[in-house]
């Protein structure tokens, strides 16, 4: 069947939503892992039936689940995320706590799972406290790519309000050695050697919330996105500011333009138009809801700078929800579908690139993440 499969992580379980290519009628399957927080689910581009889910909770810790049949059944795989000792530091080292004092690195949960583009058995996990792990055996075991935490700036990294989390990982579409990651609140980093070493890529970011606005690290980057046809062009939603880089992150410039507010969490790129970008402006860092009670996605067709509100089918009064960083996705059908989920439990779909929206499901638990698989 040609269509779309949405993988929705919520505070109380996972849901799998499927539709044909018209994307007007949806089957809702779930909750899977009822009662657990599902920070993220994602399907393998190399084998669409292989899905990964991060299942966690305050009581019983972290579980990683894998499905080999498109979400019909799941099995727990390895969940041992052991930090590597770091050269020149005691044990796994320390980062800074909220109050600036050193705190030993300790694993809390998996925020993001990023499957390899080519190998179904290889998957990356971005975790809190911020580190990147890799499995090459279908999730049975995990090994830290410790060069990231081992960067000289590591002891200075501080948590954002949600914790010191590695929440974003972009894989270069053709160069397996190159990856981009983002950490709250350390900033963005790039590797050109498969994860052995990492370079902070934060030049051009200005963050008024830190003592030195142009610091090499310390920026609260909320999300990154790229289009596979132009992997040197990166888009960033920072705590405040929407940013763009045309040199693989070596430098950034602001593209917030005429947005009503440039605070927000997710950012994504149209599947067929590399200069068409989507964000969801949020009122402020002290009021994490959409502005003025209106749920509006903003679209730029000029690679940023000029933005248009997309409102058709979205509530335009009395709406006070947030859209979290991993809760937006695009499919690759001919008419690019755009999807997002809200903290109010609604999942919206636009089957026409954002021109119009429909609510697929209205009363799920608070949505933490949305990913989509294009089925052909």
């Amino acid at each position, binding site marked *: 069947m040609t269509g779309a499969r949405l993988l929705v992580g919520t505070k109380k379980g996972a849901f799998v939503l499927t539709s044909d290519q018209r994307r007007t009628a949806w089957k809702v399957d779930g909750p899977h892992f009822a009662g657990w927080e599902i920070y993220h689910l994602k399907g393998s581009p190399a084998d669409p039936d292989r899905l990964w889910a991060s299942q966690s909770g305050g009581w019983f810790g972290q579980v990683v689940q894998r499905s080999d049949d498109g979400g019909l059944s799941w099995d727990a795989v390895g*969940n041992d995320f052991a930090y590597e000792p770091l050269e020149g530091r005691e044990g796994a080292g320390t980062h800074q706590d909220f109050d600036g004092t050193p705190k030993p690195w300790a694993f809390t949960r998996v925020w993001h799972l990023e499957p390899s583009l080519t190998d179904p058995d290889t998957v990356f996990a971005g975790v809190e406290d911020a580190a990147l792990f890799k499995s090459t055996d279908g999730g049975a075991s995990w090994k830290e790519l410790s060069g990231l935490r081992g960067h000289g700036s590591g002891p200075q990294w501080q948590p954002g309000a949600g914790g010191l989390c590695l929440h974003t990982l972009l894989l270069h579409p053709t160069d397996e050695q190159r990856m981009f990651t983002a950490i709250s609140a350390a900033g963005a980093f790039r590797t050109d050697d498969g994860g052995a070493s990492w370079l902070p890529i934060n030049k051009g970011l200005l963050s008024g919330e830190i003592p030195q606005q142009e610091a090499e690290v310390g920026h609260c980057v909320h999300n990154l996105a790229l289009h596979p046809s132009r992997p040197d062009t990166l888009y960033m939603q920072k705590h405040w500011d929407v940013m763009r880089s045309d040199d693989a992150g070596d430098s950034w410039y602001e593209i917030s333009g005429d947005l009503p507010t440039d605070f927000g969490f997710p950012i994504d790129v149209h599947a067929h138009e590399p200069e068409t970008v989507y964000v969801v402006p949020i009122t402020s860092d002290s009021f994490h809801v959409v502005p003025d009670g209106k749920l509006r996605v903003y679209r730029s067709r000029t690679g940023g700078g000029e933005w248009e509100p997309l409102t058709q089918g979205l509530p335009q009064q009395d709406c006070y929800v947030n859209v979290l960083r991993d809760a937006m996705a695009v499919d690759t059908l001919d008419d690019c579908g755009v999807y997002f989920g809200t903290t109010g439990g609604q999942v919206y779909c636009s089957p026409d690139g954002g021109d119009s929206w429909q609510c697929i499901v209205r009363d799920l638990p608070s949505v933490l993440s949305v990913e989509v698989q294009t089925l052909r």
Partner: protein
Amino acid sequence: MTRVVLPHHLRSLARLDGEVQLEAGTTREVLAALEAAHPALRGTLRDTGSGKRRPFVRFYACSEDLSHASLDDPLPDAVLRGDEPFLVVGAMAGG
């Protein structure tokens, strides 16, 4: 035979309907036998690396809190006889 009662979330995770029966004479042996029989439970009761009990997990038997006792203390006779269960309890919380 030691009978172990798990909280709902862990029974779901391990795909168990009711009690688990194990050969175990201490709390440490209960944990090891549980994890060996049901690998999905690894890391959910105690940290995989340090072996420390998770803060929101408690162990009870015969109306006694065994959470802070030595892992190597013998379990109460009533538990060893199978008359009383070994209880794994998650902290109560709302939301």
